[in-house]
């Protein structure tokens, strides 16, 4: 089975794709930081930040709307922020009844709500662009260069490698259960909720055991090829001049957004 669905990398060989992964990781994080740092209602700065995203999209050859189309993942979470519409004091905009409550939307509440959603929406687009233009193993190497402890990056590297194997395994387990989830007319099928939960737990246990025993075999395979505790890599991952220039420029631009947002 193939779970390419999990691979968010789209190779176009563009300028962004060729940029050193460290640069992309730093720029993404700083951009997100900047969004969150902008005050509520900094519309001009938000707009400019979006232009920045569009420009990055253009540089990636993925199409201008690439991140836009995928940017609604975080939207459901906006529900968590919906209460600020009513709870922040300000002049009322509209009032309506919901069940037993009388709810009043205030202008300050609206301002805050919209700002929160925009921040989230801008941030997620940048993150999407990062994984679309950088192979995940390169992101992990970048994290290593950025001094994330080796044990953690190694765990992440293994997680990524085995994700596909184990997810396939899960899908096969789910499939096996589905294939035998039969019913005959006249009988109530499906069993009790507790029984269904137990079956799911058994599947998790089964998966655990297989994963555990597989890790033993993988370790053997690594030993067989000379592993002594450290993963070596041959990829150069060097910062070139273009990388330095790019990171300096983009950080300046993001700083500019901050200034514009605060004046």
């Amino acid at each position, binding site marked *: 089975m193939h779970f390419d669905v999990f691979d968010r990398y789209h190779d176009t060989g563009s300028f962004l794709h060729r940029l050193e992964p460290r640069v992309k990781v730093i720029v993404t994080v700083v951009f997100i930081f900047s969004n*969150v740092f902008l005050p509520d209602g900094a519309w001009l700065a938000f707009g400019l930040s979006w232009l920045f995203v569009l420009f990055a999209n253009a540089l990636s050859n993925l199409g201008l709307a690439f991140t836009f189309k995928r940017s609604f993942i975080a939207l459901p979470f906006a529900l968590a922020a919906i209460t600020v519409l009513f*709870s922040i004091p300000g002049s009322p905009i509209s009032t309506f009844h919901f069940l037993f409550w009388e709810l009043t939307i205030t202008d300050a509440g609206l301002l805050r709500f919209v700002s929160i959603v925009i921040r989230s929406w801008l941030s997620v687009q940048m993150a999407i662009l990062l994984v679309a233009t950088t192979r995940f193993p390169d992101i992990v190497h970048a994290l290593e260069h950025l001094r994330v402890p080796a044990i953690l990056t190694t765990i992440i590297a*293994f997680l990524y490698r085995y994700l596909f194997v184990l997810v396939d395994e899960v899908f096969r387990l*789910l499939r096996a259960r589905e294939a035998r989830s039969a019913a005959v007319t006249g009988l109530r099928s499906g069993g009790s909720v507790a029984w269904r939960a137990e079956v799911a737990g*058994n599947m998790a*246990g089964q*998966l655990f055991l297989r994963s555990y025993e597989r890790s033993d075999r993988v370790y053997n395979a690594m030993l067989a090829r000379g592993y002594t505790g450290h993963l070596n890599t041959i990829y150069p991952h060097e910062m070139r001049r273009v990388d330095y220039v790019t990171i300096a420029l983009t950080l300046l631009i993001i700083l500019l957004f901050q200034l514009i947002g605060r004046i």
Partner: protein
Amino acid sequence: MHYAPAPLHIPDGFLNVTVSVICWVITVIVIGVAVSRTNKALGEKQVPLMGIMAAFIFAAQMINFPIAGGTSGHLLGGALAAIVLGPWAGMLVMTAVIAVQGLLFQDGGLLVMGANIFNMGLLTAAIGYGLYRSVMNKSTATKLAVAGVAAWLSVMAGALATALQLWLSGTSSLQAVTITMLSVHALIGIGEALITVAALSFIFRTRPDLLGEGSVSAESGRGWIIAGVVISLIVILLSPLASANPDGLERVATDLGFIDAGQAAPFNIIADYTVPFLGKTPLSTILAGILGAFIVIGIVVATGRTLQKKSS
């Protein structure tokens, strides 16, 4: 694709900078300790093991079971990971899982990843392991029952922490967010508990050696029991307070200065966004902004560095 983990993954934009940074600092410190402990306690053999266990948690979160009316239950896994792998390794494994979910699938943001790791990785591991460890020498049935309670509580702890962070960031009103978060997760937690218990009993039946005395998970001791029990008590006491009597909590938070620290943006570090000797000019505001940013980044980097040195 049933990729639908519990709605605890906060996206970027929903927590303000102060709360995000504070959570990152706490998380980085705890992870730093976890890194040095696991480096010491476990051989290099454990690294592939933990990587695969992380993939296991990730994959196990996809195992769902129908409850009723189209909803289904599934696993978060923090408690299970800590019970099986020990608390430190469990935390690292959950950190890796949450990092990959955020980085690769945008499931949870990057700036708020510290908070997500804290809520779903650290709290859950502490509760799960702490409570389980307290009955290490009891019968299997007791262990399973306690593991179930711990799993449920761990989900509630994550939900409560998420709610508090959203409130402190000024993203939600306290009462609304705690009530919804806690009631939704009280149900989700039941699924978590059932699956955790069934998975553990499966392991007890097939490979008891992985869970007994002398296994990886049996190494740490009393400190965890205390931590687990204390955090559980906080959850149990704080949940009703937050959802039934938000004014009380609000009062406490104001008295302690939490709300000011949280809700006012971090430029308060520099009063009125101005650098004193430049007066209230635009330049002053600009410089104050830059300074503020550098201070925060500096704190993060410095903490990271020290931890890095400690751990290597």
